[in-house]
């Protein structure tokens, strides 16, 4: 799959780097004891420190440090035992202190790697440059009043991990795969819930283009994209915009843009802001962060199995192809669900049921696997009922639908609705005979060479047996009968 843009004057390569802000899962904020959960009434989750009252001071939250280290380890990154908090100074209404406590020259996590899988079966490694801890800002609402903006500081001070990639991605597909993979890893680790709608995961995308083998050209930053779909759209639009500009003889100015989801375009920020000079300096209210080996090793020892490891394991133990394994492990809960069902059963059959029927149903009802109406055990039981011939795979589909609606176990549904498979050849033959008798004309057509009517005959017999006829037996018997033999049942 080529990731070149074919311009009028030749090929262009897209160069993409991503900065992802991930809200850390913790009870309290990075430097204060106020709560972090989403959706509270305005300014009810604000400590005096978060509102930058005079004389208030930061005290760092141990859990947030742990989560950052855990994430660094999950990204195969180097953990910096000595790191420093720095102030990033700028004025904005949602930044009460007039500075954000972040990390600048000495972040807590250094270079790392993320493996991504693409739809054509290939894999790539994207390099992570660094991960650092920083405070989130509050929220401004600009649409409540004609001349006033409303400020809510609930989110001010929530811990964020800023994860910066190298500009290693060259297509919107790669960028999407990267975001999904990163999100998956963070959710596995339990360090971020990856909920993009609620803003716990936000992407800033840096896009530029260049001729093959050229040095980097000017890039533009598109801020605060909150869905993978929009990441893709923004990259496509922006890269093509650069190409258009260059090919018409213009030049790209470094700027920050925002993505307008209604038009699918990136637009310049309306107020031409002065170039920010953040005047970073080490925060004198805090001491440097020092991590000892024991602390890091404890976290490392207790890391959960991560997506890449799980995927390899699924491929080896369950013999699943890479693509399917990749889908099943993207989400830890899904992987656990799958493994519960797959225990002692045919893994490929299970994979099929989970990825097709179950995912389809969950998607239609907008649910997550954690509130699936069909439990892993019940799905397993359903698959067993097919396996031991109690029901046909055809009937199983309607049992599945009933399970979705009622949450009952499959055998109860089968019994209640009398859905057991008909395997008795005599019964099937009687049904076949009846259909053939009623449609002698069609039999003649079949015997006359229109063999495609077989499907219709099978359908009719199925209907006559309420779908319960064993498909294999039905197929064998009906072919013989239509062919003219009067085989008696075995």
């Amino acid at each position, binding site marked *: 799959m080529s990731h070149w843009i074919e311009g009028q004057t030749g090929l262009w390569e897209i160069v993409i780097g991503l900065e992802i802000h991930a809200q850390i899962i913790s009870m309290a904020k990075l430097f204060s004891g106020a709560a972090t959960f989403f959706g509270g009434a305005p300014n009810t989750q604000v400590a005096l420190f978060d509102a930058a009252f*005079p004389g208030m001071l930061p*005290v760092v939250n141990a859990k947030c440090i742990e989560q950052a280290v855990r994430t660094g380890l999950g990204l195969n990154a180097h953990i910096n035992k000595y790191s420093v908090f720095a102030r990033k100074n700028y004025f904005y209404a949602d930044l009460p202190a007039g500075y954000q406590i972040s990390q600048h020259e000495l972040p807590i996590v250094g270079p790392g790697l993320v493996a991504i899988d693409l739809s054509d079966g290939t894999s790539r490694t994207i390099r992570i440059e660094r991960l650092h801890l920083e405070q989130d800002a509050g929220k401004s609402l600009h649409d409540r009043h004609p001349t006033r903006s409303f400020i809510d500081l609930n989110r001010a001070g929530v811990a964020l991990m800023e994860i910066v990639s190298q500009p290693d991605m060259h297509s919107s597909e790669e960028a999407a795969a990267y975001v999904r993979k990163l999100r998956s890893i963070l959710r596995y680790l339990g360090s971020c819930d990856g909920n993009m709608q609620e803003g716990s995961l936000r992407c800033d995308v840096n896009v530029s283009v260049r001729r093959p083998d050229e040095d980097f050209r000017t890039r533009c930053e598109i801020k605060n994209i909150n869905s993978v779909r929009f990441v893709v759209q923004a990259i496509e639009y922006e890269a093509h915009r650069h190409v258009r500009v260059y090919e018409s003889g213009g030049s790209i100015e470094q700027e920050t843009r925002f993505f307008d989801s209604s038009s699918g375009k990136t637009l310049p920020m309306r107020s031409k802001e002065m170039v920010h000079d953040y005047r970073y300096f080490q925060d004198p209210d805090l001491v440097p962060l020092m991590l000892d080996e024991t602390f890091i090793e404890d976290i490392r020892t207790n890391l959960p199995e991560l997506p890449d490891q799980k995927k390899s394991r699924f491929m080896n133990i369950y013999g699943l192809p890479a693509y399917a394994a990749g889908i099943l492990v993207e989400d830890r809960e899904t992987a656990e669900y799958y493994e519960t069902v797959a225990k002692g059963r045919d893994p490929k059959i299970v994979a099929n049921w989970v990825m097709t029927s179950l995912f389809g149903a969950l998607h239609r009802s907008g649910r997550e696997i954690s509130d699936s109406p069909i439990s892993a055990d019940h799905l397993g039981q359903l698959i067993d009922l097919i396996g031991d011939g109690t029901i046909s795979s055809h009937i199983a589909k309607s049992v599945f639908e009933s399970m979705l609606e009622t949450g009952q176990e499959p055998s109860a549904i089968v019994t209640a609705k009398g859905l057991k498979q008909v395997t008795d050849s005599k019964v099937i033959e009687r049904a076949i005979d009846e259909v053939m008798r009623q449609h002698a004309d069609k039999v003649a057509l079949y015997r006359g060479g229109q063999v495609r009517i077989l499907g219709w005959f099978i359908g009719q017999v199925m209907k006559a047996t309420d779908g319960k006829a064993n498909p294999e037996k039905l197929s064998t018997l009906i072919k013989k009968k239509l062919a003219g033999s009067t085989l008696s049942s075995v």
Partner: protein
Amino acid sequence: MTALVDLSLADARTGLNRGDFTSVELTEAHLRAIERRRFLNAFITETPEIAIAQAKASDRRRRAGQVGTMEGLPIAIKDIFCTEGLLTTAASHILDGFRPPYEATVSARLRAAGAVTLGKTNMDEFAMGSSNMTSYYGNVLNPWQRHGAPEIKLVPGGSSGGSAAAVAARLCLAAVGTDTGGSIRQPSSFCGIVGLKPTYGRCSRWGLIAFASSLDQAGPMTRTIRDSALMLGAMSGYDSKDSTSAQVPVPDFEGALTGEIHGLKVGVPCEYRPDGLAPEVIALWDKGISWLKAAGAEPMEISLPHTQYALATYYIIAPAEASSNLARYDGVRYGLRKAGNSSLNEMYMQTRAAGFGQEVQRRVLIGTYVLSAGYYDAYYLKAQKVRTLIIRDFQQAFKTVDVILTPTTPTPAFAMGEQMDDPITMYLNDIFTVPISLAGLPGLSVPAGLSPEGLPLGLQIIGRPFEEQTVLKVGGVLETAACFTQRPSLAVAN
């Protein structure tokens, strides 16, 4: 019988314990003194009703047998400490109407120890100054006057000018101040009182309105060394709400005042004797050295080679930190807001221009500049490196000596209106105090004598980190030898 307002903290404590008088009587005497000497402008906010209520409560506690270390003793608090429900301004227009819903740790500890709050004292705006002439609430008058020139108004020093004047003028038994580059020690020297800047981290900064975070320290301002030790004990201690608070135990400071300094090595740095230093200052310093020698100490010359760079270092680092610490004063959540603007930036700009005085604006601009792109390395980073060298100078010196003795200020109190030509002249007042702040060391100013015009001069004792006990002990020896009993002319016997 000594007037109630002329007692030391320690003697007042004794008197209260003996039942010679009540806290209410003691407090009322001070409230009357405050009224009589309001012309000094030492207070921004007086709190007479609260003081009486606290005094009554203290007397009740005493009758029930509950006696804290500062029980019933009336003190004043510099208006840089957030006091719950009480106007707190940092002497700035930009904090108009600000009533903190919380109490600073240091003042809370003093209250918990039983102290009575007489009011919030005047200061240089946001603690930036050495004269208490930058306050939005007007200048503070030094209760001392030059012999034969009573019409010349003198500055009390700064930034804790109101606290120093109040203690010197017997408006309170003691006061809490803060010191960033000399703001306790310099006004203490100018007003003839004892002022201690503890080791950085000894007292909590929680609730202390920040000027320069790596330098600010709260400290006691008193009339005697024993009082300083007593009050320091009540103020100190680890506070987990302050990440720069030191996890060290609080020793018995009063118990260390044994007067026993035999064999103690006293460093005398040659760099603190620059050309042109006033002869009376040199003379007093020499006298101090001889007093300590007479008590059995061993003076010896030391070198602190980077002393000459300390002021420049300080005037890069402190404004840099201040420019960031003061960014929160923007009219959004408390204090002054300049209304009627069409944009957020305009509101910020007009509020801050109207709310901050000139010296604060100057320092915010300097601080912003030295951190800005292209200048960070040459100014801020360079200054931090020189700071390391200054710290090393002291570490090296303390390998051979136990304390260091220097003058506190190069001159006695100057007149209002002098030193106004340019900011730098004002900055030079802190030449002897700033290096100690940069190194985070404990520094004590003890009134040691008078200048030819009859104005107090202080000597500074510097110690190793967390060795306030030694510093106070040496201070006690100097105090005994100096026998400084003079009173400011604007606060003669009551």
